[in-house]
């Protein structure tokens, strides 16, 4: 495995005449927890979608473990989107079998155990589950993979404080050793304590790419820096 797990060079993406990414470049090493921070609409999701292979018409280069987004990279990237991506007729049992069929690194036994722990009925249809239950299930499906790179797009959005703690706890306890987590959010306070590094995106540009240690060494918190960069009044 290469030292740099994710390499992004001069990534540009536009929707028609609207440019959302203006040539973003960064490297992510293995074994780090990285916060991808920025307000809504700054280009975070487009960046993530390009990395996971959902967007192909971008300019620039993306390499995951030395490979462009494709079949091989998808096998080592575990992606949690903002949306519920499971068919409404599926049950947790079926969703777990589905993941086990396609991902060699998916731990089916662990997923079944986690579903029990999270109080999910394995035979309940997803369409009848609450939003919170659906999010728990998707989190199980992602975190039960022994992936090299976990990409979590707004996993804490739209849930209460207790749920946010629960989600973050699940992520921290279940990600595979020496894996990297790229965690996109605008709720910095909740995740600050777990981050090793932060990337801040503003108007399609990467404006901050630094270690949390370096930020705290200046006497600031990540949230302080975020407010500074995005001119938020505290």
């Amino acid at each position, binding site marked *: 495995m290469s030292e740099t797990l994710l390499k992004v060079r001069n990534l540009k993406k536009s*929707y028609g005449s609207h440019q959302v990414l203006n040539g973003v470049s960064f490297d992510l090493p293995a074994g780090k927890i990285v916060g991808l921070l920025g307000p809504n609409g700054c280009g975070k999701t487009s960046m993530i979608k390009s990395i996971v292979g*959902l967007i192909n018409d971008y300019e620039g280069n993306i390499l995951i473990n030395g490979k462009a987004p494709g079949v091989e990279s998808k096998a080592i990237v575990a*992606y949690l989107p903002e949306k*519920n991506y499971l068919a409404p007729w599926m049950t947790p049992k079926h969703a777990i079998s589905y993941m086990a069929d396609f991902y060699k690194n998916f731990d089916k036994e662990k997923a079944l155990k986690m579903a029990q722990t999270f109080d999910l009925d394995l035979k309940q249809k997803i369409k009848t589950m609450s939003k919170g239950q659906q999010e728990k299930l998707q989190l199980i499906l992602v975190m039960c993979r022994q992936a090299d790179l976990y990409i979590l797009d707004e996993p804490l959005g739209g849930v209460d404080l207790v749920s946010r703690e629960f989600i973050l706890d699940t992520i921290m306890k279940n990600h595979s050793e020496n894996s990297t987590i790229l965690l996109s959010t605008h709720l910095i306070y909740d995740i600050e304590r777990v981050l090793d590094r932060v990337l801040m995106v503003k108007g399609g540009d990467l404006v901050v790419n630094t270690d949390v240690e370096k930020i705290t060494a200046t006497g600031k918190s990540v949230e302080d820096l975020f407010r500074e960069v995005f001119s938020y009044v505290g």
Partner: protein
Amino acid sequence: MLAKLLKHEFIATGRLMGVLYAVVAIIMAYIIGSYYIGRDASEAVSTSQMLGMMVLIVISSCNFFLTTVVMVTNFQKSLYGDQGYLSFTLPVKSVSLLASKVIVSTIWYIAAFACLMGTMAIMYFVIKEDYIGQESYAMIESMLPLLLGGKSLATVITSTVISLISFFIRFAVLSIEVYFAISIANTRLFQKRYILWIIVFSLGIPYIAESISTLISDNVDFGLSVSADSIKIVTDYFQLDAGASFINLTTIIISLVFGAAFFFATHYVMNKKVNIR
């Protein structure tokens, strides 16, 4: 991975189609069973058999439309809707993703065709005398040798198999054309009113393809001459033997070319031109 994709594609589409064909199978088994087991030869078709027959006719009549609706809905939701976030991040080639959908939809179309044939066969063999009358049955039986034209069994079987293959290729190509139409309707230009454009393109693209196919096949005589005891390739209608029937190979070749072209065009559009909502 194609096998796994096929398995899950069958599960996704089989919830409705599977139940439908299970109902069809039960009704067919009931009609055939009740006819042959413990039935007096002079006994008329029972009300329940007639009712079953009517259900079969209704299902067979709307089966192709229902299959199309299920295929279109499943393709749209599983690739270009929220479920696309899962489908497109699976570690499978996108060409396999598309192929699995084409194969499964073709199989469902074949099932719809088999259902129609089964219904007709039951009408003919089981309730023929009571339903269509002794005279009509005798007339159909007397017409069969005329339809077959005195051809040998081997010739009839070969030409039937070729005709069925040609028929099934048309179903596969129709599926690909509809999938191409859905993909185009999901590109940036048409995405806002994609349902409207899916309908427009799903009707328009197969119509244009069929028109081109007809135009070419009307002008290129290439096919099989099926006579009493032989099948041979002919390149002109005038080469047909007296009493021989003609299987148009031009149409099959054009279908295959269109199928390949639309398949790779769909693959290109879904990879390069569609951004999942």
